[in-house]
């Protein structure tokens, strides 16, 4: 699936839930399935500045695709990361840089999350795109 298709899939999944409680359950489930980052990458330099919860992000380039791994000490944050990962993981730097990421808005997450949390999500996406940019420059 390309990035756009994955985004559409997530938006459709979210539309199935009637209320946010259900959506949160879904986010939490995704959080539990997040491929976790190796402990040695959980360093302060890899911390993304968030609000109340910590987020670590690591990326590697293999055969033209970027592989992300990440973790957070809060499960809902982990779920949000997992969603972003689902969309961006294992794509080329160009694809990642071109990703619209409008699922954040179309799932209602952007509106629903508090500004600090929404910011955290946006920062995470930004960091992934920055990584993609760095890999692209290296190629």
């Amino acid at each position, binding site marked *: 699936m390309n990035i756009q298709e994955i985004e559409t899939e997530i938006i459709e999944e979210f539309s199935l839930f009637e209320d946010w409680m259900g959506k949160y*359950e879904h986010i*939490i489930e995704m959080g539990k399935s997040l491929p976790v980052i190796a402990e040695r990458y959980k360093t302060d330099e890899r911390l993304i500045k968030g609000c109340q919860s910590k987020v670590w992000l690591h990326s590697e380039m293999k055969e033209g695709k970027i592989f992300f791994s990440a973790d957070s000490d809060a499960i809902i944050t982990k779920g949000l990361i997992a969603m972003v990962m689902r969309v961006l993981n294992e794509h080329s730097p160009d694809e990642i840089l071109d990703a619209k990421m409008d699922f954040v808005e179309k799932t209602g997450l952007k509106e629903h999350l508090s500004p600090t949390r929404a910011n955290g999500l946006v920062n995470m996406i930004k960091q992934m795109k920055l990584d993609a940019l760095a890999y692209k420059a290296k190629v």
Partner: protein
Amino acid sequence: MNLKEKHSALDIQKIRKDFPILSRKVNGKSLIYLDSGATAQKPKQVIDAITKYYSEQNANIHRGVHTLSQEITSAYENARATIQKHINAKHTHEIIFTSGTTESINLVATTFGKWLKPGDEILVTAMEHHSNILPWQQLCEEKSAVLKVIPINEKGELLLDEYKKLISSETKLISITHVSNTLGTINPVKEIISIAHAKNIPVLVDGAQAIPHMRINVQDLDTDFYCFSGHKVYGPTGVGILYGKEQWLRKLPNYQVGGGTIKTVSFAKTEYADIPLRFEAGTPNIEGGIGLAAAIDYVNEIGLENISVYEHELLEYATKKLSAIEGLKIIGTAKNKASVISFVIHGIHPYDMGIILDQLGIAVRTGHHCTQPIMDKFGLKGTVRVSLAFYNTKEEINKLVKGIIKAKEMLK
């Protein structure tokens, strides 16, 4: 009189009707507001006073001869007198309007601080809000003075013996919180003050979390300074009080200067006004002062003694109910507590708990509560904090407990 009889003195359902926001829905659920420690909700008496000010009374104070200006000047000065009476200050000119606790503390740190010399010491406690740490920390850095910290025990109680040991001939001021916003601990401020005074050291008390819960009598405490915010005692945001003993206020150098703080001004020489106006530069938060007085009147109408008794009952009920939840640990178990309960749940991030409770319409605070040193002391990244006011009910606590259990299931 026993607790039950006293409690029946309050008609909580009637009181709740005074707070329009309490009938709001949040995420489709009836709001359960358990974050009064961050800011209290406002009764319509306060909202009405502010509306009336803007629709009928607005003018600048201490300035004009016209009727509106005179009317609002006396209303504002009456508000000062209401606050003076409420905390039993000796004089109205010992009451200075500020923007809040934070500014009140900064005012003292800035002015008193001018006298500080290298090697002088300021004492604070390990349970201070950042607002009662940073002004002193910054001052000590500027003046090469030393900030010393009175430690606390595992229950979150001050170690008075350590306090006595920390006092030295270099100690110039002691700044302590009356009630901890994170742990709920009520500190024995009267005793702390008398120990300090035996060595002629002045004391500032941060009363931000005490003022909504108990009667404050600054003369009985014999405190040199007492600070609080309007918004935590059911009044508006952006207004607060610095109480200072007359002899201190007269001695303190100027803080911010400008319009309102003077008698006569010329480029050669300015003669400053008397206290309290010398510390109130610029047009003040007039609506804030008026609203705060309305809040104080409201609290007195309900009766602080009734409030203390009922809130204590809520605290005990909530403590019992919360403690029964598996894996839940209350942080802050001092013998003497205000209605603030911080807790952690094994394996669950406070932030996750806060989000799920919010979905259920339950507003709690999560995080470090501007008291990072406390979090370090207990080795935590944060807690969930429930702070109860007299408009809360046992039914709400029951719903909180149900909510926590549901959230635990989702998050585990």
